[in-house]
């Protein structure tokens, strides 16, 4: 049976049979780099297109439909357009930091891809502190945003970056608590072990009500963390024009845009891994036939299906809820989500220790 796991294993065997140790590592690393870059570009194109089509679908209009069949080449055309635009640096800007900021954001987004399990036994680096790594690295991206906002020397950019920073650091706590709620159950931070612990049911179903609460909190928190509507205070068009990337144009703007969408993918992938079982197929108790059919669907399809479902939910939010004001946003986090998630975590600990979960 052809699976991503077998393909990567056979490539490794083929290489190590013919070449020396160093050459194998070098070739494998370059394959990883190429795959990561391809994944990046593809995800960017797909997610932007999906965003526009979902928006169109929700607002009962057609969306992009001119470039290519059903408009599927619209984002490619947009990318070419952005590449042809002048990459401009304002006179007053701090030139070095202004140019460095997109790189910081991109490097963070790329490094976050490392521990994610895309299919059965198929991750770039299944490190034993996977989830902790993601929480830790993703909080560095706020530095890139603050850097961009400050270096632009534009008042809109600075205010947007400050808001963005306040929002990201606030909601990071609830997101972390929601992640911890599942870690208490699994007893491991390694992504593969978290997925394996869900082979007899997803944590969303096995963990009673605290898991559901944690899931809801996680989705709210990551929506805020990725600066998406209804929490898009950072780039509220009507008041701050473009937020921290007001002054960015051309390819540098495209990089920010891309990193933003990759971050959405990553947080949804983590959510799918923790709560919806990652690449584990959907099983129902004792229905042997049904479970057997579900096993035939490749694990990568399951993983991408769950992830894109969560992405769809986040895009759906955008057209359902009105934008919050900054003080309402901070109130929601500090006065509601934080205490709820803290007590939810303690409650879940009690359940895990007593063994009340399934």
């Amino acid at each position, binding site marked *: 049976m052809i699976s991503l796991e077998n393909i990567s294993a056979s490539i490794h065997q083929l290489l190590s049979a013919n070449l020396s140790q160093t050459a194998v590592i070098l070739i494998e690393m370059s394959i990883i780099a190429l795959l990561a870059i391809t994944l990046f570009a593809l995800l960017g194109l797909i997610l932007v297109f999906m965003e526009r089509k979902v928006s169109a679908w929700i607002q009962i209009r057609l969306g992009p439909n001119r470039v290519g069949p059903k408009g599927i080449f619209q984002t490619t055309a947009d990318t070419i357009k952005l590449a042809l635009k002048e990459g401009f640096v304002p006179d007053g800007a701090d030139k070095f930091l202004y140019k460095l900021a997109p790189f910081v954001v991109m490097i963070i987004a790329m490094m976050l891809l490392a521990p994610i399990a895309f299919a059965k036994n198929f991750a770039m680096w299944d490190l034993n502190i996977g989830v902790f790594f993601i929480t830790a690295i993703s909080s560095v991206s706020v530095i890139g945003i603050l850097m961009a906002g400050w270096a632009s*020397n534009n008042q809109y950019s600075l205010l947007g970056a400050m808001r963005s920073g306040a929002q990201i650091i606030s909601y990071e706590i609830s997101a972390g608590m929601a992640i911890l709620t599942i*870690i208490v159950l699994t*007893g491991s931070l390694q992504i593969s072990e978290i997925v394996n612990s869900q082979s007899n049911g997803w944590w969303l179903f096995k963990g009673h009500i605290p898991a559901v609460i944690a899931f809801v909190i996680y989705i709210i928190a990551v929506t805020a963390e990725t600066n998406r509507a209804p929490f898009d205070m950072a780039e509220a068009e009507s008041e701050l024009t473009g937020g921290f990337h007001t002054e960015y144009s051309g390819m540098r703007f495209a990089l920010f845009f891309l990193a933003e969408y990759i971050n959405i993918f990553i947080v949804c992938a983590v959510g799918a891994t923790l709560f919806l079982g990652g690449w584990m197929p959907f099983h129902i108790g004792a229905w042997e036939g049904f479970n057997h059919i579900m096993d035939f669907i490749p694990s990568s399809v399951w993983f991408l299906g769950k992830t894109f479902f969560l992405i769809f939910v986040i895009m759906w939010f955008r057209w359902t809820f009105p934008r919050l004001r900054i003080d309402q946003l901070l109130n929601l986090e500090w006065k509601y989500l934080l205490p709820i998630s803290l007590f939810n975590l303690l409650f879940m600990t009690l359940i895990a*220790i007593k063994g009340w979960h399934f």
Partner: protein
Amino acid sequence: MGSGTLITLMLAAIVFSAGGIAVSKILTKGSTNLQKGQAYECGVPTAGSAWKQFNVGYYLFALIFLIFEVEMVFMFPWAVVAKKVGMLALVEILVFVFILFMGFLYAHKKGALKWM
């Protein structure tokens, strides 16, 4: 694969971003003039630099965030072993969270979470 993956991914990100910027630099030609170089403020003349003192309403949130973030760092190792240690882990974290939460309530009472 090991930590080499991270270095590879970092290099990949740098190559990808730098390549994109370089390609767009080759394809485009730029011009500069006085108005173009100014910071964008919706078409009106730019009113001074952004690098000045102003009241950041979020700094108290940032301070409280710091406390809770450190708490999270403590809680990750705790969460991994909580199930193995059993009731003792729950009691210890209850004491820890109680002290922390009292501090949080104190900050709330003092008006640190109120919007200025």
